[in-house]
C-alpha cells in the first residue's frame, strides 16, 4: 500500500517529476477577504442571478412547509446571526 507521504509514483514528499504539474499550476485561487469594505467579488452574472432566484424560491417554499410542520428556527437563526459576526467579512 502506498504511503500517504509519497506521490503516485512513490516520489518523496515535495518531489516533482518532469512533465507533471507543479503545485502553482494547480492552485485554484488565493482569495482574501476585503480589508477596505469593498466587495472583492465579481458582480453576479444574469445566469447566476437567475439560478440564485430559483434556489431562493425553493427556500421560501421549504421554509413555509417546515413552519407548517412546526419547525420554526427563529431561535436558531438569532444564534447563527450572532456567530456570523465573528466570520470573515
Amino acid at each position: 500500500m502506498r504511503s500517504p507521504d509519497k506521490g503516485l509514483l512513490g516520489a518523496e514528499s515535495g518531489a516533482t517529476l518532469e512533465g507533471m504539474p507543479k503545485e502553482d499550476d494547480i492552485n485554484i485561487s488565493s482569495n482574501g477577504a476585503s480589508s477596505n469594505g469593498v466587495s472583492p467579488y465579481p458582480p453576479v452574472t444574469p445566469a447566476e442571478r437567475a439560478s440564485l432566484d430559483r434556489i431562493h424560491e425553493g427556500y421560501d417554499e421549504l421554509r413555509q412547509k417546515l413552519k407548517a410542520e412546526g419547525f420554526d428556527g427563529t431561535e436558531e437563526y438569532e444564534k447563527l446571526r450572532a456567530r456570523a459576526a465573528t466570520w470573515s467579512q
Partner: protein
Amino acid sequence: MTQLKRRDVLLDSGAVSALAHDRKLLEAYLRLVKEDYDGSIRIPQPVLGEIFTGDPRKDVVVHRLINELCAKENVVDQLTDAIAKRASVLRHKALMVEDDIEPTDAFVVSYAEERSARSSILILTSDFKHINTLVGKTDCKNIDVEVPR
C-alpha cells in the same frame, strides 16, 4: 438597497446528516443564507459518496433533504479535474501535519477554495479539526468553518 455580503454554505456529510435530522436548524440556515447573504447551500458531489448507508430507514431523511435543496435548482456541485487535483495537493500538505485526512474532506475544501473567488464560504462540518487543517493549507481568508449548531 444595501448589497448583501455574498456567502455560500458548503456541507460535508456530517452537516448533511445534521440538517437532515434537525429541521429547525435547517429552517434557520435557509433564512440566513438567503436573507443575510444572498447565497446558497451547496453539496460537493464527492460528499454523496459517503452519506448513504444503504439502509432505507436511515437514508430516507438524507434523500429528503437533498431533494428539498434541489427542488428548484441542482445544488450538487460537480467534480472537475482541477478541483480533484487541487484536493490532492491540499490533502498531501495536510497529511504532513495530521493523520487521517480523508479524500472527501480535501474535496470539500478544494470546492470551497474554488468557490471563494465568487463569495465568502462557510463550510459546515462534523469534522472541524480536519477541515480546518485543510483550509489552513489554502491561502484563502474568506473561508470559515463551523460545526452545525
